[in-house]
């Protein structure tokens, strides 16, 4: 495996070499004014639409009594469990399948190449009609899923959205359907970026098939996989669309996640502060994930 390591080390050295600026050291005078002017638009957007709303959210949710009320509420406890299941199962199953499928799409058969554009469709479709379609597919005996079950196997299908477990599962499946293509494409791009010489060197050293996967692909894609999983976890904890359109929180708010519960509190129960407190209670999970993500990004081996 030493040949592989040499190739890798050379590549990383080239990456880490410091690069000089055209404006030796830092820009001065009118050029400095330009450099500042170029940053101003983003700074304005950042303060007006990121810092101010965040500060406002923290201010709205500052009262400890709100959190006592949340902890006492069985609905909140159930929602936390739902969110953990939705994120834990949804993200990990999706990322693992995406990693495996990216390997499948590397195969040079024409039918594999023809499948890729079809497989990418869910990503290209807007989320709203896609999730509404899932909702209609699952509503009771008239939906397509139960229609197919009775037409093909003569089974009477369950009422998918009337059972907490089934409805939760439906949300997760719809979520995986929509977002797996994007991550498959990301891992596919990562795999194509591995130089062919590395595979050849590994093959000479006797690593093919499963051993190639564990000894070559995994070490090279490991950091990319970690970063993508963390990023996807951050995005999924805040996912509102899937649950609000597929199960609509049914039956009786029992499949709500934090984002939809916060929304119900704020706009249906007219208690915006309680809604903000409900979503802000995810911060102890979000902040460590974000810190690990930043550390992983600093290692400079990752590309999206």
């Amino acid at each position, binding site marked *: 495996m030493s040949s592989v390591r040499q190739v890798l080390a050379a590549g990383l050295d080239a990456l880490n070499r410091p690069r000089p600026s055209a404006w030796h050291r830092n820009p001065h005078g009118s050029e400095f004014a330009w450099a500042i002017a170029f940053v101003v638009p*983003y700074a304005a*957007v950042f303060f007006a639409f990121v810092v101010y709303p965040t500060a406002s959210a923290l201010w709205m949710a500052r009262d400890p009594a709100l959190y006592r009320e949340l902890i006492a509420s069985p609905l909140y406890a159930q929602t936390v469990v739902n969110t953990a299941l939705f994120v834990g199962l949804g993200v990990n199953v999706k990322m693992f399948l995406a990693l495996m499928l990216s390997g499948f799409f590397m195969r040079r058969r024409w039918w594999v190449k023809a499948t890729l554009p079809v497989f990418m469709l*869910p990503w290209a479709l807007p989320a709203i009609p896609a999730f509404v*379609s899932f909702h209609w597919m699952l509503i009771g005996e008239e939906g397509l899923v139960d229609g197919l079950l009775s037409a093909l196997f003569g089974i009477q299908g369950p009422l998918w959205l009337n059972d907490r477990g089934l409805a939760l599962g439906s949300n997760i499946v719809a979520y995986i359907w929509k977002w797996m293509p994007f991550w498959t494409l990301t891992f596919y*791009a990562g795999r194509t970026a591995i130089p062919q010489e590395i595979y050849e060197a590994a093959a000479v050293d006797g690593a093919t098939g499963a051993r190639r996967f564990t000894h070559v692909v995994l070490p090279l894609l490991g950091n990319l996989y970690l970063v993508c999983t963390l990023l996807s976890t951050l995005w999924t904890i805040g996912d509102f669309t899937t649950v609000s359109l597929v199960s609509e929180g049914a039956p009786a708010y029992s499949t709500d996640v934090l984002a939809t519960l916060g929304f119900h509190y704020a706009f249906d129960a007219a208690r915006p502060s309680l809604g903000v407190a409900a979503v802000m209670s995810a911060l102890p999970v979000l902040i460590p994930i974000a810190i690990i993500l930043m550390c992983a990004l600093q290692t400079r081996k990752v590309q999206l």
Partner: protein
Amino acid sequence: MSTITAEARLTSSRTASRALRAVRRRHHLETAGTLLLSVVLIVWTIVPIYNMVMISLEPEGDVFTDHIWPRVWSIESFWGVLTQGHWYLEHFWHQFANSIYMGAMVTILTLTIGTLTSFSIGRMRIRYGWLVSNAALLTYVIPASFLAIPFYRIMQNYGLANNLWSVIAALVAFATPYAFFVFQEYGRSIPIEVDESARIDGASPIQIYLRIYLPLMAPALVAVGTYAMLLAWNEYLYQFLLLSSKSSMTVPPPVAIYYAFRRRMTAGLTMGGVKG
């Protein structure tokens, strides 16, 4: 002697044919396996899309589909949408235009703000520039949907309630950190000497930005532009929350543009990954 050689030759040819048969069997297995997986993936992808198309082709009042084919094929629904023939759809074309406008604005603003900032940080090396790009990443610590409630209040303070620009502003704020990331990674592949020689020839920073930086960044611009547009199309909560009057609502537009850009988009993603 000759019999021994002949025997050896026979055995070796037997081994070879056995090995060949094993290779061929593995080849057939691979063919069968990849074919099967392709079919499974296509069915998995198509079923919800098929359902969506079928519902739109059903005659009105027959939304629930206990049968697998529509009894009567009807383009009545599409006609109704296009002619705004239902009270719920009376602003369809207006809303469609809103969607296009919003997608375009989010894309243009994300690209403009993203490249300007990346140029200043990555090429001009402004002091404390790293602070800006790290602060930008903080945007992802709190998911956008968690800020929806304060956003709703703030937009009223800004006088942007029920205004398309409230959604555009929110989406640009959430799309730019990813844009910085891609632009800075891609920018590393453009030699700084290009900027240097332009500067010696007397080009001002804005000229270098417009004439050198932007053209060289084209593949990254396509990748980020597609990302921003798809973000705008997939957004639901902010549009649902911030736009309540019918004339400012949007509808999700078609997917044709994605297919036009798909090849370049994949190329852009791959280019970001050259250093793997």
